[in-house]
């Protein structure tokens, strides 16, 4: 009896494990069924695409399997899956300036050069130059830009009017206006912007360019210790330190900074234009009807906001379903879809959509003007153009935080400059 039961249990255990393996193996062959596996970030753009996917499925006969994740989770997911060479992802939404170089260097992104030029109707030439540059690595097109953004000035019309100040055209005017409003409204900050060491870098970049600086100089050496950079650090950090919210946190990314602005607790806010809906949507903003937009005020070197593609679509190099993946991208980035997305509040990368009056019909008039002017004067990157962007951002962002907390901008910039040069040298190796 004893023996028999042992054999019996062993057999059941074996059967179970075999059965489980059989189950686990099932459903692996998705491409036979004509499925495209698409991974997208949480974004207004994604909401629009999600609603339209049935159209694509009907027209193409393909089935779309959608995975939607928050920005950080998306990055982690790519790090794990692409590192393992997984073919579970066909189409991936990625940040060209954050991960593009690293992904391309690691061979994660399929070469789309011949695909983008294959369809004259879809029209790759329609894409703006800056975004195209950002999704091209070593002469190969590895992604199609979908969302572009520029830094603009958000301001409170009512507060400016009450204080009797004009919309600032220069950085000096901005500082004076922030000072005046902060002095007369004890509960309201004159100015707010991102403060997190890494998060603030992109929004600080436009200040850096407008003061005549950049992260690296023409020869590729670190330039965050230059006089222009020191002035920019001191100005950006000083605005927040002197006229920012009391007890300001040094961990703010856009959700936190935007919340302060939309709670009516700040007069000026510099942020990406693609987030404007958060400020003008009455469901999200207490000051929805009082928000105005303007081009970034001019510094000593003029008004030089960044103008960049924040997100793009790419094909996973390890995917065995690349043709269908391309079909999805072609559809999702078509002129019609781009126009629809732009009308829903997502600034697109296609010149034709911006030329079309319908393309800006849903935007506040002052925002559309600010965007047009920014696109002309814009700089094509908003963070150091390196492989390990995450680390670089922490290095060049340190002086921002140091200044906000009352440290010496110049000394912090010198320290950051040495660290950044060391970092750049290590990347060349």
């Amino acid at each position, binding site marked *: 009896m*004893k*023996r*028999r039961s042992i054999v019996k249990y062993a057999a059941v*255990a074996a059967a179970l494990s075999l059965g489980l393996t*059989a189950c686990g193996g099932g459903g692996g062959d998705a491409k036979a069924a004509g499925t495209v596996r698409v991974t997208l970030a949480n974004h207004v753009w994604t909401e629009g695409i999600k609603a339209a996917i049935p159209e694509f499925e009907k027209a193409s006969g393909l089935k779309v399997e959608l995975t939607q994740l928050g920005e950080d989770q998306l990055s982690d997911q790519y790090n794990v899956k692409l590192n393992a060479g997984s073919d579970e992802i066909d189409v991936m939404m990625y940040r060209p300036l954050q991960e593009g170089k690293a992904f391309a260097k690691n061979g994660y992104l399929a070469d789309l050069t011949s695909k983008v030029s294959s369809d004259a109707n879809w029209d790759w030439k329609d894409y703006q130059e800056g975004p195209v540059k950002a999704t091209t690595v070593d002469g190969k097109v590895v992604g199609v830009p979908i969302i572009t953004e520029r830094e603009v000035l958000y301001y409170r019309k009512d507060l400016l009017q009450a204080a009797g100040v004009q919309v600032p055209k220069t950085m000096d005017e901005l500082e004076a206006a922030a000072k005046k409003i902060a002095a007369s409204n004890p509960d309201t900050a004159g100015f707010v912007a991102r403060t997190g060491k890494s998060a603030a870098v992109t929004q600080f970049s436009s200040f850096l360019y407008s003061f005549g600086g950049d992260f690296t100089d023409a020869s590729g050496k670190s330039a965050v210790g230059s006089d222009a950079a020191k002035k920019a650090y001191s100005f950006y950090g000083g605005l927040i330190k002197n006229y920012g919210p009391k007890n300001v946190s040094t*961990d703010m*990314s856009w959700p936190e900074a935007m919340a302060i602005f939309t709670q009516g607790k700040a007069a000026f806010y510099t942020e990406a234009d693609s987030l404007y809906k958060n400020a003008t949507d009455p469901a999200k903003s207490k000051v929805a009807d009082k928000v105005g937009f303007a081009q970034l005020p001019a510094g000593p070197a003029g008004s030089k906001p960044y103008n960049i593609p924040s997100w793009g679509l790419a094909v996973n190099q390890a995917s065995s379903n690349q043709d269908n993946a391309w079909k999805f991208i072609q559809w999702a980035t078509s002129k019609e879809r781009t126009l629809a997305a732009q009308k829903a509040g997502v600034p697109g990368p296609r010149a034709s959509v911006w030329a079309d009056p319908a393309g800006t019909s849903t935007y506040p008039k002052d925002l559309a003007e600010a965007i047009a002017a920014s696109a002309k004067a814009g700089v094509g990157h908003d963070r150091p153009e390196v492989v390990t962007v*995450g680390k670089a951002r922490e290095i060049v962002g340190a002086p921002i935080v140091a200044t906000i907390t009352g440290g010496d901008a110049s000394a912090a910039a010198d320290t950051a400059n040495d660290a950044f040069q060391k970092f750049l040298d290590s990347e060349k190796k």
Partner: protein
Amino acid sequence: MSVLNTSRGDTTRGAGRSAARTPGPRENFSAWANRHRKWLFAAPAMIFVGVLIIFPLAWTLYLSLTDSQGSVRAASEFIGLENYVTVLSDVERFWPAVGRTLSFTGVALVCEVVLGMGIALLLWRPFRGEKWVRVAILLPLVATPVAVGMMWRLIFDPNIGFVNQLLGMIGIPPQPWLSGQDTALGTTIFMDIWQWTPMVVLILLAGLTSLSEEPDEAARMDGANAAQRFFFITLPLMMPTVIVAILLRGIDALKTFDILYATKGKGGGSFHEVETLNVYAYGLSFDYNQYGLSSAVLILFFMIIIGTMWLLTMRKKAVSK
């Protein structure tokens, strides 16, 4: 799956019948299985441990000896102990992270055990409404750590948070809490205590209930007061349970990641003010893609945990004797 199951089931029955008649190969297998049953039954667990614990550990150890970065599939060179030298001489991120990990764990653990013991003693004797109180005390334990992090982040917000508004009512100026360079770690320790004291209560309460009441009563007869009875009777008898609680909670506290990440994000804040070893290793691999360096940190971290636990286990053995 069901098909496989039935067919296997049939063979088994056949095996049983044939075993009763003539000894055959199946009989041999059965005898072999019976002789090695301790291995046979332990095999699934051992394979599980091998695949999910030993292999990753060995792989991490291997990675820590290479200069792997960017992609783990990219070519990497064997560089011996260089990563360990780099990490151990890093006074900017590594050593502060070690300090934070240990102080986070130490402070949280002491508070949790003291508070936990107090609450467990209160709940020890039956009283009216006992069940409700127990449920209420256990609530933080069942909340998801990330949700807990989000909740406290709102409560501790320097401008719109509840705590500062409350302090404002009694005239205390707003405090930076999570956003302050010096207050952030303390605030996260508080959150950890809030969430995990109930677990310590649970373990200690189980220990208390299993204590025999006689020594306590005898001491009472001899005129010992409550404090004397606690320190000289209850606590020594409870020592093995207390060490178990410290052991379980200590390992968890050392490895804390979720509430730190949910409240301060990557790198533990702009000044790395809550960056513990776990958060640091996460940043190294997921933000910097420096897998070799990150693995070295993790191996060192692993050794710290093993070392701490070894000390505690030794202590437990001494107490049990």
